[in-house]
């Protein structure tokens, strides 16, 4: 199996990121534009405004629609787009930061990976040097990636979706940098995910599976870059898998009857909505049994892993403020919340 090269519709591998960005802008010129010399800062056409906190998200490519798909009015003002699975560079992040700076400071949001932390921190230092106040939020939703005592080490996976959405809405409501940061951190503290992978993904440069997984195996807790998870075993029925993903989330969050959540059942790539909805059915069933209320659900591909087969489940525990921010309208290529 590892001998077969994965087929992809790309041109030269070294051109994929610029060509993807060109494709996004050509598809959504009413929402997106590119600013700065690196060509890697995708900026909302009508997002950044004087006096509004600038929201910059970013990370490696291969997770489409993350990250640039979440750029637009009411959500992120810009995304810094790295190479496949590689953090954007400080220069690329700075292009984004400069484009969104409206005098009220800039907030960076990204998944908690060494590479992203290093690069965004360098950019943040540069901003501070220029007199632009910044705040950084590392999303840490993946319960499979570290125990609760070391939750600050956890990876960011599909929970990006909720944390970005909340941060964008907070900024849209005109909150100041500390207010936006507080909202984003509240979302981050109340978001948990866990995923399962069924097949490997392949980098466009190698077209070879990133890792080996048996023809009847799944990996519970695998990361969105194919980082090993916590258990490998035979593929099981959707309900069994769903329970195995959901249980640690419920436990980690200490959810109880009467709580309200938003749900994201996220496809990693090759797994389609037919399967994702079967998973959501079970999620809703289990939450119902626990007396936990679903405020809103999203089911589809929101933070992908190239063409990996698999899925993840994310819960965001809501309070009134988070709920209001979640419901705040936004218009991006990947998510429209209508007013």
């Amino acid at each position: 199996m590892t001998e077969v090269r994965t087929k992809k519709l790309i041109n030269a591998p070294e051109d994929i990121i610029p060509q993807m960005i060109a494709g996004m802008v050509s598809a959504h010129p009413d929402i997106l534009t590119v600013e700065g010399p690196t060509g890697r800062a995708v900026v909302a056409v009508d997002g950044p405004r004087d006096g509004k906190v600038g929201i910059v998200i970013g990370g490696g490519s291969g997770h489409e629609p993350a990250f640039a798909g979440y750029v637009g009015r009411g959500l992120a003002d810009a995304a810094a787009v790295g190479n496949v699975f590689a953090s954007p560079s400080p220069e690329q992040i700075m292009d984004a930061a400069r484009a969104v700076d409206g005098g009220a400071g800039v907030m960076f949001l990204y998944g908690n990976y060494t590479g992203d932390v290093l690069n965004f921190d360098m950019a943040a230092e540069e901003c501070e040097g220029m007199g632009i106040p910044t705040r950084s939020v590392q999303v840490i939703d993946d319960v499979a990636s570290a125990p609760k005592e070391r939750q600050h080490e956890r990876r960011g996976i599909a929970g990006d979706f909720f944390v970005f959405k909340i941060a964008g809405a907070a900024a849209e409501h005109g909150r100041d940098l500390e207010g936006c940061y507080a909202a984003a951190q509240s979302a981050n503290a109340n978001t948990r995910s866990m995923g399962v992978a069924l097949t490997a993904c392949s980098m466009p440069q190698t077209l070879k599976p990133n890792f080996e997984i048996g023809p009847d195996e799944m990996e519970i807790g695998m990361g969105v870059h194919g980082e090993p998870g916590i258990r490998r075993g035979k593929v099981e029925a959707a309900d069994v898998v769903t329970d195995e993903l959901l249980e640690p989330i419920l436990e980690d969050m200490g959810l109880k009857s009467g709580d309200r959540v938003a749900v994201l059942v996220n496809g990693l790539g090759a797994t389609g909505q037919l399967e994702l909805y079967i998973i959501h059915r079970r999620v809703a069933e289990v939450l119902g049994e626990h007396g936990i209320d679903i405020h809103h659900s999203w089911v589809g591909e929101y933070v992908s892993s190239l063409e990996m087969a698999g899925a993840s489940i994310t819960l965001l525990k809501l309070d009134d403020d988070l709920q209001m921010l979640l419901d705040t309208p936004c218009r991006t290529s990947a998510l429209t919340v209508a007013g």
Partner: protein
Amino acid sequence: MTQIDSAFLIRFFRLASEQLEADRSYLCKLDGAIGDGDHGTSMALGFAAVVERLRRPLMPEPPTPDAILTEAAKAFLSEVGATVGPLYASAFLSGAKCLAAGPLETRQIGTLIRAFADGIRTRGKAETGDKTMLDVWYPAALAAENACGDGAALADILTAITEAATAGRDSTGPMIASRGRAARLNERSIGHIDPGAASAALILSVLPEVIL
């Protein structure tokens, strides 16, 4: 070559770049096992960007060694970002400081290697034993300094470096990672060579060809 000067560095970057390009998929494969499979690509792209940059005119003209390393840092970092961008950028900037007063004797190569290692450590906060590239850079630096201090011949210093680098790389196999992406695997990282250590060993492996 008898000096670690601009010509040395230019040749070093060119040979290292070729070596990393040749071993791109080997490094990606190592990274696939305990990471995300992109290490070979990031390293190959980063060093290629450095070589590309050094082909164009540099100030001052002719460029000083520290100017070369400073430009290398910028070129690598802006090309790849990733984890290795900031780490190697810091390595090169730290090397630039170490060569700011002018070229070193080739025998003092350990000093430059240590400067690289210190730069990486400052930026990434890892220590030896964390199963990272530092498990190659520090042992290599130490081996070079010891051999130099013992008055060894240049060729023997280089052999000491290569041996220490290889041993350092292999030492990462049984380690549990505590930095970077692999740190979330706990015991499951055991038995896999760290990709960053492997690429560090590949970089150091070109030194004999650079110098002799």
